[in-house]
């Protein structure tokens, strides 16, 4: 199982996601409420996976993913949102992102599947 950093500005999501992932065997190393603290925490905690909300109060998820990718030993980034994947179009096809999971679809196995598939996952439908 993997170590995870959860990044979202909504406390209710962080709470539920942590409980769900931990119940399904993942180790949640920490939680961040915005982009800058996410980058900071990722550096210090070195999680394997960052579960990253796209709509953050400071930087958006795409920008955070880009910055995380520049660091050495960068984590696998999985973006999440309560909006549909189609909303973001081709931006999800970035090489710095392992995949996208709708928030209500989140589960330990779903996350594990995405991570196993690795980066350059096919983007959302064109």
């Amino acid at each position, binding site marked *: 199982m993997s170590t995870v950093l959860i990044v979202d500005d909504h406390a209710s999501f962080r709470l539920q996601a942590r*409980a*769900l992932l931990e*119940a*399904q065997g993942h180790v949640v190393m920490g939680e961040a409420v915005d982009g800058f603290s996410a980058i900071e925490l990722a550096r210090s905690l070195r999680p394997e996976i960052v579960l990253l909300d796209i709509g953050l109060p400071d930087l958006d998820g795409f920008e955070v993913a880009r910055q995380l990718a520049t660091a050495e030993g960068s984590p696998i980034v999985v973006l999440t949102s*309560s909006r549909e994947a189609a909303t973001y179009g*081709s931006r999800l096809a970035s090489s710095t992102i392992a995949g996208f999971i709708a928030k209500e679809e989140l*589960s330990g196995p779903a996350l594990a599947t995405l991570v196993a598939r690795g980066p350059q996952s096919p983007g959302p439908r064109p």
Partner: protein
Amino acid sequence: MKIDRRRAFIATVLLATAASSAIPIFVDGWWLDLGMPGRFALAAACWVSVLVGLIARDRRPGNPIGMWLTISGLCAPLAYLTGAESPLLIVISALVFCVAAGTGAAVSISFPTGRLDGKAPTAIAAVVVTCLVYRTRQVLFFDPVKSVPGWTHPNPLFVAPDPTYLNVFDFVYGVFGVAFLAVFGFWLARRWRRLSGPARLSIAPVLAGALVFVATSLVQVGAGIAGVHGSALDAVLFGHTLSFCAVPLGFLAGLLRVKIARSAIADLVVELGETPEPAQLRRALATALGDPSLAVVLWSAEEASFVDAGGARVTSLDDAAGARAVTLLERDGKPLAAILHDPALLDDPGLVASVATAVRLTVENDRLQAAVRAQLAEVRASRTRIVEATDAERRRVERDIHDGAQQRLVALSLAIGRARGQLAPTADPELEATLAQASVEVRAALTELRELARGIHPAILSEAGLEPAIRSLVDRAAVPTELKAEVPHRLPAPVEATAYFVVSEALANVGKHARADSACVTVAVEGDSLVVEISDDGCGDADPGRGTGLRGLRDRVEAVGGTLETISPAGSGTTIRASLPVTGGTAK
């Protein structure tokens, strides 16, 4: 009452004219017989003078010229009753001759104002005295029985003169008469030459008429000195008598020319179009009036001063005018414009009024148009602001849904998922089924909420851009739809939103009304515009005026300064084409 008196006056004058004009035709009255053509010419001159005089009096009631013309016309036939048998009639005829000559001279000298100032009274007095002397000589020393072939009535007032003195007098007086007429002719010609632009219109024909009269008078006096007789004398007398009509006819021609100039000015305003430039107006007026010095200065409220055509301030109208006259136009007591023009224009108040009306119309029109343009710009700007505010509000509501209810439902969905995971393998299957149902319900709620949020504001538009947003619309369209999109860069948000709504509404219409098998959406940047076109192969006949859909779409498109076309012939499909200006992104 006033009208009745006027009618009575005119009727009296006409009766008197009829009587007067009958005299030369029916009464053998003159020692020198005019011959029948000459007699009719005299009757005609009488009528022309009287009628033109009445017209002139009607046009300018305060101007005495009309009265003078009428009087001279009425008197002319009586003045030729020199051959009457009654001594009293002969004397009256001589006096009436002087009146006719005096009023005729007054018309020629004082036209067009009718004012007898300067040397005018002296000149008229000279004419009257000259005529008086001439007629006195005729009355006292002329013996028609001896001089006129076939004449049998003796002159009752005849005094036998010493022929030598009489011949000397006649020679001196003839020379004096020629000189007098020559001076008068010279004066008329000089006055004609000095006429400027607008004055030429009405004054020149009268001066020309007076010159014709002077010329025929010279011929007649010359013929007398030379002793011309027979048919040549008849021709000279006929020509001279006919020339009595010249001044009144000249007056009539002047009136017509002014009338034509006035209607030309009225036409100007129409010809110049909606908003003639002041410079254009100036040129047109100058041409119509024949006054190249004419200038129009407009009042500028901002400058609190008159400004000339070049926009420079005019501090003093009098200095700017120089020798020109100034006609000031006002509206509600405030200055509007000023016309600098040849002072001669003032001789014709009607012409000044026409010019003033033309300028006033133009200036007022210009101001109204400016006011309407400003209002229209304000309305357009406010429409744009309303659309932008509405868009912003929709974005806010969508975000509120996203951050609020949607997050709660997501958390709820995850919690249900957790609860299902926490169930012991031995748990009640019914509980498991209930939780599964709850999970389905909550996901359905999330989906519906997403649809709702997308209807309020498509997040995809701000997140992914116009092309993916339109692609998502095309993917959900009711009929198979082809998309040809080429949008190389992001465009101003109001333009993207408008384009999106055009496609969204048009595709919805295709699904609802068109009975189409397929549709095509084209999005491309052409020059400075984003062009969006949605066409289908349905039944056509869409009416942009009916229903709120297309109307609302047009309002939105126009709010960003764009245009919307609907081409929808019955039976041949519908094409909706929106062209949205990209530069600036907001309405003009």
